[in-house]
């Protein structure tokens, strides 16, 4: 075998499939952005020229604005809550030696494989049984309970991969356990905490299957209102909303790249 083929890690079929797959993935994202500026309620070719009508529609709709406020509120409360509760839990699972540790880990991670609809209906049944009319509180509790395993899992994987010698060195040099944790361990967990936070944040804003059960007219959130709008009307207002969400996710991706680098975060997610 010659040198050239050693340098090429794969044949032509692999990059061809990957390129097609990328186009497939980007198609709806690019399309919905373009569609949001189309001056017409239906899709047509050639597209009619740029308008901000649907954005005006979105921002002037009281339903969409209240839903945006609710969604942001849920995401901004649930994300830090999951991190604050998840971090000590992850430390206990990764480092602790106590009876039932494995059982706790299994129980904690099991909701990850329960379909969202089942979790949603089950929580609805519980809230109905205890007459818990908590308004937005239902969704706050639901999203917290649902998001916690994500946060814990990424942090446990990261903790298990740390080099224990760094912490031993700090301890040998006289740092207390608490000081070692905050000055040596915690900074190393930066990328998994960020990954966990992004996951919980996106889930809190975008989750449909749980939100649809735990919200009502007064506590409606973005995905549910968007679904109802798609069902009842036929114009690109939802495309405007989608474009704003895509812009937000682009901003998140760039922030991650600047903060820790995407490839590094992927490396962490290996487990």
């Amino acid at each position, binding site marked *: 075998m010659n040198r050239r083929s050693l340098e090429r890690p794969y044949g032509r079929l692999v990059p061809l499939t990957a390129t097609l*797959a990328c186009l497939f993935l980007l198609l709806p994202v690019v399309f*919905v952005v373009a569609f949001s500026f189309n001056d017409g309620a239906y899709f047509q070719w050639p597209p009619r020229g740029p308008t901000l009508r649907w954005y005006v529609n979105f921002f002037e709709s009281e339903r969409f604005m209240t839903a945006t406020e609710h969604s942001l509120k849920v995401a901004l409360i649930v994300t830090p809550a999951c991190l604050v509760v998840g971090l000590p839990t992850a430390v206990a*699972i990764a*480092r602790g030696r106590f009876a039932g540790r494995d059982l706790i880990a299994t129980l904690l991670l099991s909701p990850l*494989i329960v379909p969202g*609809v*089942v979790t949603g*209906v089950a929580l609805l049944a519980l809230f109905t049984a205890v007459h818990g009319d908590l308004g937005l509180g239902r969704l706050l509790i639901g999203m917290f309970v649902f998001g916690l395993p994500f946060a814990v899992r990424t942090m446990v994987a990261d903790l298990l991969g740390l080099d224990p010698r760094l912490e031993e060195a700090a301890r040998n040099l006289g740092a207390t356990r608490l000081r070692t944790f905050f000055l040596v361990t915690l900074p190393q967990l930066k990328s998994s905490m960020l990954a966990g936070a992004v996951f919980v944040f996106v889930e809190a804003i975008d989750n449909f299957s749980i939100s649809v059960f735990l919200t009502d007219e007064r506590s409606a959130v973005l995905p549910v209102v968007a679904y109802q709008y798609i069902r009842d009307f036929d114009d690109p207002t939802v495309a405007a909303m*989608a474009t704003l969400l895509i812009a937000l996710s682009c901003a998140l991706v760039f922030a991650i790249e600047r903060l820790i680098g995407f490839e590094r975060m*992927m490396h962490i997610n290996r487990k």
Partner: protein
Amino acid sequence: MDKENRHHLWLTVPALLSIGLLFSAYGLFGWTSFYRATPGGLGVGGDFTFDNYLRIFGSWRELAVIGETLWISFALTMISLVIAVPMALVIARSPSRLVRSILLFTLAVTFLSGGVTRAYAWMVLLGNKGLINLALVHLGVIERPIRLVFNWLGVSISLVHFLLPFTVFTLVGAVKNLPLSVEEAARNLGATRMTTFFRVTLPLLSSGLVVAASLTYSLALSSFLFPLLLGGGRVRMVANHIYERLFVAYDIPFAAATSAVFLVLSFVVILGFAGLERLVRKVVVR
């Protein structure tokens, strides 16, 4: 040191409360499956009964929804894997940082842009007068628009789009861990690229493939939003069925029984995948 590690138990108390809440919800919900719905509202009452379960196992319609969900999820998992392997190979091995970044950014932006966004985009794209039909007619592939939405085809296209980032992200780590030297040895000994891929790369990757398949499968099983929007009531998966039992028929006990049957089946499938992974690792790694 050991004593301090034992104190770690206290750190889990808030998480245990959260888990306790969730499991009492599951428990209560499961318990209602043994009762009957009271007419009007979301009430439950009557005597302890297995009626709801008998109704599921005695009705072909109920079993068909579950069977269809299991089958279509399997097919979608396989399709996602076939597309995901080349993508993971490029992300893990491409010598160009730019190429790797483009793929990662594409996956990340798609992944983060949300379910409703993507389901809506596919609805408009795949519609009778949508871009896809328009392009196919223009290119002469078809004579007049074909139905791409409100059937399994539309639901499947949008679901593969939803599942693919998850599959690729779980595969990348496994591909990165492959020892390149073994493949190079195979090539040096005269194996073609195809032979090397199928007889060296894939077997080495099999454990990672099973893990990725298991995650993709459990996500596919629980799909709800995509069949709801792109199925238009004609195509239903179990999650949609449960939702209808609840919000159309107001029958909590029957919805609970369906959820319980479905949950047990998903657990069996996931345990099956875990067993398969252990088996594969034993056979391949030896």
